[in-house]
């Protein structure tokens, strides 16, 4: 950790060493982005929905304390126990004490980026409590002892041969059987047993409704529901910014979320938990962990509007070509690069520089967060605080490394798309340093036309 601020750059270079895989990663996420576009274009009022989503969230932030109190009061009336944690350590301790109280040693967990942020699995493992991540992608990376590389597609950095090997090793599936159906069924069998024999279930929260005191959890796999309904204890962990005022606000967010994330019209399950079932105990842990500070940073508070759809990841040329692990933060990608420096400026000073500021993230964000402007603003803050120097240099290297590697440029249909996909740093916008002569990466020194002609032969 001699130069923490150059981490992203180095990790990105390592990711790119396997050129074929990097290209697959790039293309697959671009494909997800294309599905998002298609889904969005089917809704004539898409832009109106984005505006509504943004306004509802901005309104909520401006009344956040009142909505949290309203939520707490209503949740309690519903028979839910509400806890408050100021930081990750408190969150982990609260969860641990609930589990201890119930003598729970086997826990099933559905996707929760917050528990990743807090390092809950590790903390509980040290206390002899085993947590199984039940989202298939998360289960795969957990078996491999890796963190998720994407908040919606946790195992997107892996190929099916990796999954096949991992399952062969841990679940004794047939060697080299790479059939996704076979592998998914194998995991289903193992995890069904886990759901049934666990002592408690932990879930994340997509939305918490102040006026009704309940939470909504969205999954495609049904793992959150199966885990919760099969168990006597349900602990839901959430950053407090997940709160929304009214149940009808869900109609806006559920129309935006899955379409932005994967291009689906809605996730398979959008489950509304308001009261524990008979004989069950339900807990909600409201977590701060730096969010109040971010709320106080005028330039960055809008990052708290995020609904974690990951559209900004999928569209980001740097994310697609450097992989989620290079961001060394539980939330990667453009939004992660805004959230991370708030938690630790020194450690995460490199992240706001891991961007071309092309603005594609801002254009796709369903709640209209000005992502690329915030990345630019973080750079100014970090430079002023003395953290930015080496990060900036590293980012220049990143651009020449990650974005100018000719081998991966392929002729796409039409020049406009080609630019948007591969060379967004040549797009002129007022924040984009790459557009200015002095900052141009060295690779395209030859005229673009020559360079393009030459590289086109790499097809």
């Amino acid at each position: 950790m001699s130069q923490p601020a150059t981490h992203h750059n180095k990790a990105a270079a390592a990711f790119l060493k396997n050129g074929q895989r990097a290209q697959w990663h790039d293309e697959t996420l671009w494909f997800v982005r294309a599905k998002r576009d298609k889904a969005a274009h089917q809704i004539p009022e898409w832009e109106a929905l984005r505006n509504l989503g943004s306004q509802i969230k901005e309104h909520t932030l401006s009344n956040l304390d009142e909505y949290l109190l309203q939520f707490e009061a209503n949740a309690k009336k519903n028979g839910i126990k509400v806890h408050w944690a100021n930081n990750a350590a408190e969150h982990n301790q609260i969860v641990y004490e609930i589990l201890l109280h119930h003598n729970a040693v086997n826990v099933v967990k559905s996707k929760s980026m917050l528990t990743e942020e807090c390092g809950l699995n590790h903390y509980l493992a040290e206390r002899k409590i085993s947590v199984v991540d039940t989202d298939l992608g998360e289960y795969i990376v957990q078996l491999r002892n890796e963190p998720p590389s994407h908040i919606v597609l946790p195992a997107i950095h892996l190929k099916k041969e990796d999954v096949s090997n991992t399952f062969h090793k841990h679940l004794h599936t047939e060697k080299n059987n790479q059939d996704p159906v076979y592998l998914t069924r194998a995991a289903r069998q193992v995890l069904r047993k886990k759901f049934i024999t666990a002592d408690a279930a932990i879930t994340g929260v997509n939305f918490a409704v102040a006026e009704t005191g309940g939470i909504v959890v969205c999954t495609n796999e049904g793992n959150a529901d199966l885990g919760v309904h099969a168990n006597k204890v349900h602990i839901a962990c959430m950053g407090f910014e997940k709160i929304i005022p009214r149940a009808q606000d869900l109609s806006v967010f559920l129309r935006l979320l899955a379409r932005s994330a994967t291009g689906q019209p809605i996730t398979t399950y959008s489950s509304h938990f308001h009261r524990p079932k008979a004989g069950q105990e339900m807990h909600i842990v409201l977590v701060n962990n730096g969010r109040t500070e971010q709320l106080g940073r005028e330039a960055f508070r809008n990052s708290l509007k995020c609904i974690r759809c990951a559209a900004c990841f999928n569209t980001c040329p740097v994310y697609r070509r450097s992989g989620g692990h290079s961001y060394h933060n539980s939330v990667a990608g453009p939004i992660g690069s805004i959230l991370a420096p708030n938690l630790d400026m020194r450690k995460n000073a490199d992240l706001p520089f891991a961007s071309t500021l092309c603005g594609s993230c801002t254009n796709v964000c369903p709640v209209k967060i000005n992502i690329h402007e915030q990345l630019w603003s973080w750079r100014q803050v970090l430079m002023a605080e003395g953290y930015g120097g080496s990060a900036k240099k590293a980012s220049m290297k990143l651009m020449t490394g990650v974005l100018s590697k000719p081998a991966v440029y392929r002729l796409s249909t039409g020049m406009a798309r080609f630019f948007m996909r591969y060379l967004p740093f040549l797009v002129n916008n007022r924040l984009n340093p790459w557009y200015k002569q002095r900052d141009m990466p060295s690779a395209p020194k030859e005229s673009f036309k020559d360079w393009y002609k030459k590289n086109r032969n790499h097809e």
Partner: protein
Amino acid sequence: MSNSRENILAAINANKPAPVELPEIPLFERKGDLVNVFIGALEFIGATSVKVTSLSEVDEYLESLQQAGTRLVNTIAELNGYNINAYKKANASELEALDTAFIKGRVGVAENGAIWVSESDMVNRLFPFICRKLVLVINAKDIVYNMHEAYRRIQVDEDGYGTFIAGPSKTADIEQSLVVGAHGPLELKVFIVS
């Protein structure tokens, strides 16, 4: 951690931005043949659907499953073979072998194929998730165009639990290949009763 609550609330109060208004949400209505849009959406999300004119057609289907020896639970009193008592309080390990569950859907959403299923209709929260095949029965008149209308029709906290179900469970976590049947049902069949 009792202090944390006060600390968090005080910090939010000190740091929150100036008031912003809460917008009204329009209905974004669209006219057209909602049933057909709904059927198209169901197909897109991997569900099958059947239009029927009376519940007796659903009965016939249910009986054919029974005759084939399917382990099924039927939570719809209007259908033959209403048998919740055996399963009402059953836990996950007792229900693991369940093949098929018949449950009533309250509201269907044409634009995305989602169907609101509330706890009092599902009887046991596990039924829609632990079965291999889920059969939802919905009245054509309960199909609305979009989520805005759906939320005006339902009361989310009427029961302790309710969920929009859109298709069979699925995953694409292995190299983005879509696999239908993750942890929940492998199949969803929807009867639309007109």
